[in-house]
């Protein structure tokens, strides 16, 4: 065999082998990439789905609350009031024996209690002040009602900086504060509570701070409330950070969300 033929043969086969091996490697890389991209897409879709589920659950929850509160007022409370009026008329009718009077009194007492309970339940479901007079007033109202009890000192600073036009967003922020307050009152054994608002170029930041015993993420009962807050923060278009205070005891919760355009 001529030398040059051998050389040509060797060179050509080397090149072919090289091409084959490079193809092997490239093929390996390519399929791996595809598999991983697919997996990531799947995961992202799953996460997106769960997130939407959660958001929809909360939206539904709020709609239901509003509906029930409205129905309680329109259907139950209003009819009870009519009953109340008629009981009064009944009282004034002549021909009532003392027994009649006693029974009517009992009816009136129970009736008033029912009306009061309906009012309280309805108010807890959907705070009227929030709907009619806005976030700023409702928050101060909430602060007053807590301070009046004497067990806590709640300060609100600069709530006027919190400008939101979307009614739903206002509701979510309010609920977050309600949840935080409920946690503090139930678990934290705090005395001072501070809520302050700040505004940056595109964000509004609310900082909630108490001087209680701090967060305990292991407590599952607390955990559910905190998770709720997290979801509502996302509905606001923002996020939430929980941490324990460094300088003193207590917990800090920071909610940051985008301003309206």
């Amino acid at each position, binding site marked *: 065999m001529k*030398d*040059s033929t*051998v*050389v040509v043969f*060797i*060179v050509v*086969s*080397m*090149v072919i*082998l*090289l091409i084959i*091996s*490079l193809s*092997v*490697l490239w093929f*390996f*890389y390519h*399929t*791996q*990439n595809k598999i*991983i991209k697919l997996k990531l897409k799947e995961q992202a879709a799953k996460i997106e789905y769960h997130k939407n589920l959660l958001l929809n659950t909360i939206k539904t929850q709020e709609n239901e609350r509003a509906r029930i509160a409205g129905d309680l007022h329109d259907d139950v409370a209003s009819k009870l009031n009519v009953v109340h009026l008629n009981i009064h008329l009944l009282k004034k009718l002549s021909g009532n024996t003392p027994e009649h009077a006693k029974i009517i009194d009992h009816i009136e007492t129970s009736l008033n209690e029912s009306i009061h309970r309906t009012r309280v339940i309805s108010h807890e479901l959907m705070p009227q002040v929030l709907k009619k007079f806005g976030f700023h007033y409702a928050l101060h109202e909430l602060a007053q009602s807590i301070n009046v009890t004497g067990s806590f000192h709640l300060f609100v600073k600069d709530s006027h900086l919190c400008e939101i036009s979307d009614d739903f967003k206002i509701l979510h922020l309010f609920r977050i504060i309600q949840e935080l307050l409920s946690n503090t009152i139930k678990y934290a054994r705090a005395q001072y509570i501070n809520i302050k608002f700040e505004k940056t170029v595109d964000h509004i930041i609310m900082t909630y701070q108490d001087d209680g015993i701090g967060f305990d993420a292991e407590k599952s009962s607390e955990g559910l409330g905190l998770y709720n807050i997290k979801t509502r923060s996302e509905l606001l278009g923002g996020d939430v950070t929980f941490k324990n205070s460094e300088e003193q005891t207590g917990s800090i919760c920071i909610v940051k969300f985008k301003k309206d355009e």
Partner: protein
Amino acid sequence: MDLFLKNIIRYQVHDIFRIIVWGVVGLSVLLAGLTIIRFKAFSGYLRYYGLWIINSAFMETAAKLLVDLDYQNLFLFHINAVIEYTLLVLIFDHLLKDIGQKGIHFILFPGIAAILLNSIFAQTPHTFNSYSLTLISLATVLVCVYYFFLLSDMSWTLDKKMFQAILIGAIFILHISSLLPILFGNHLVLMDLNEQYIVWLLRACIVLVVKIILFYTLLSYVFTEDLQDTHYER
């Protein structure tokens, strides 16, 4: 005319070849240096891989020096056959165990025995031990392919897989490109220098490129502390 062209080609090819060979040797030394400096960062199969790099550097430098000093360097290949074979077996043994397969260390001693037998009785240290080297390369290539199949099923991150793929890929390409030259090694040596050089030149280019890629990969690896865990853990 023919002869004139041939001479020109010879000088061109010869020079390019020389430059590339220096490049290869230089890179090998750099790689070895990098490995030695950061040897602590290597663990498991990477230790043996590191040793393999250092061994290659040593052998290539020694071979080049001997040629330049006009000595016979073929005995180096015999020694290298044993060392490289051992290191390769150990590398793949650990790799396969990492993946969860059985190790292949059982082929270590039979292999070494075969190589020694070949070197002592068949192809003595004055000839190129093409049989041993071809078989070593062939075996390496097959194990690499087997390894790639296994690797594609592992549920590691892409980064980690690619790191290993590049490292083993380097071994894979080095050996697959050596197969033919080594097989015809003894035949080539007897040929006209000009004709030979094309083959060796091609091989040297491939080796150079591979070493550059290997160097770059290892460089980025040793300077990212956290990557170590991702690349390293199971």
